[in-house]
């Protein structure tokens, strides 16, 4: 799967979700294709698995402030208590809509794909790692002074790789 195509679809899907559901300005910024599957992070990481003839993972990553902003705009409610379960639920649904729209468009080219229920992680100094042979296409957006990253990894299914395609989370001890 060509990274340029993924970037195009991610930008379109993100702009659509932000305009339609959030009424929030988002500015497309840099993109990258990383061979490394390991990423140190703080904040909120929302993960969705994709499975079909092609298999992979879609990830939304942002800091706590932006997660609260997304919640506030989605529900027109203030996020007065920081990153609560309701905030994580809102981030999960936004991930679902963005990755779901990308998946729908990719299905025309790659065949039908199932999508998992999102898993959302919030914390500090944790490491995410995808045990996949394929690298990540990362699309960054600027939104209200924070960065939003949408990351997608896709590879053609073969039984050996798919069996290892688990997403794991570890914690840094510093």
């Amino acid at each position: 799967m060509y990274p340029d195509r993924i970037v195009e679809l991610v930008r379109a899907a993100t702009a659509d979700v932000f305009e339609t559901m959030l009424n929030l300005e988002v500015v497309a910024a840099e993109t990258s294709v990383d061979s490394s599957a390991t990423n140190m992070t703080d904040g909120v990481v929302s993960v969705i698995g994709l499975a079909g003839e092609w298999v992979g993972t879609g990830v939304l990553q942002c800091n706590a402030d932006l997660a609260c902003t997304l919640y506030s705009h989605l529900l027109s409610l203030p996020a007065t208590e920081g990153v609560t379960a309701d905030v994580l639920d809102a981030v999960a649904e936004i991930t679902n809509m963005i990755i779901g729209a990308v998946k729908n468009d990719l299905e025309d080219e790659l065949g039908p794909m199932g999508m998992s229920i999102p898993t959302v992680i919030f914390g500090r100094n944790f490491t995410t790692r995808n045990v996949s042979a394929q690298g990540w296409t990362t699309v960054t957006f600027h939104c209200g002074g924070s960065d939003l990253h949408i990351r997608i990894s896709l590879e053609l299914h073969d039984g050996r790789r798919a069996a290892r395609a688990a997403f794991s989370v570890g914690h840094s001890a510093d």
Partner: protein
Amino acid sequence: MALDVLIVDDSAAIRKILQRVLAQADINISNVYEAGDGMEALEVLRANRVDLVLADINMPKMDGIQLLREIKTDEKWNKVPVVMVTTEGGQSKVITAAELGAAGYVRKPFTADQIRRTLEPIFAA
């Protein structure tokens, strides 16, 4: 006649948004019930009169397609209109939902107008 509506989605955020859209729409709503998956939805249906179901597809325990199948094959509920509100936009899912008897299909992200326009002909019929 005031309607009793069941909203089925594993996202509490989407359930709240749909409740708000229904409250703002020109539809006379009496009660809004919520369920987080298809199994919970069936429990609500067994315990209450429901005039309309809005259901997601990708949910834990029982997905929206199976819920639609359960509703449309049970003579107590098979006249209840079911509208799918989902990120699943693939042609195969849309066709499956239509074949099973879904009254409408709204893709997320959605606007309040899209929900209203989908519901109007259902209640005009």
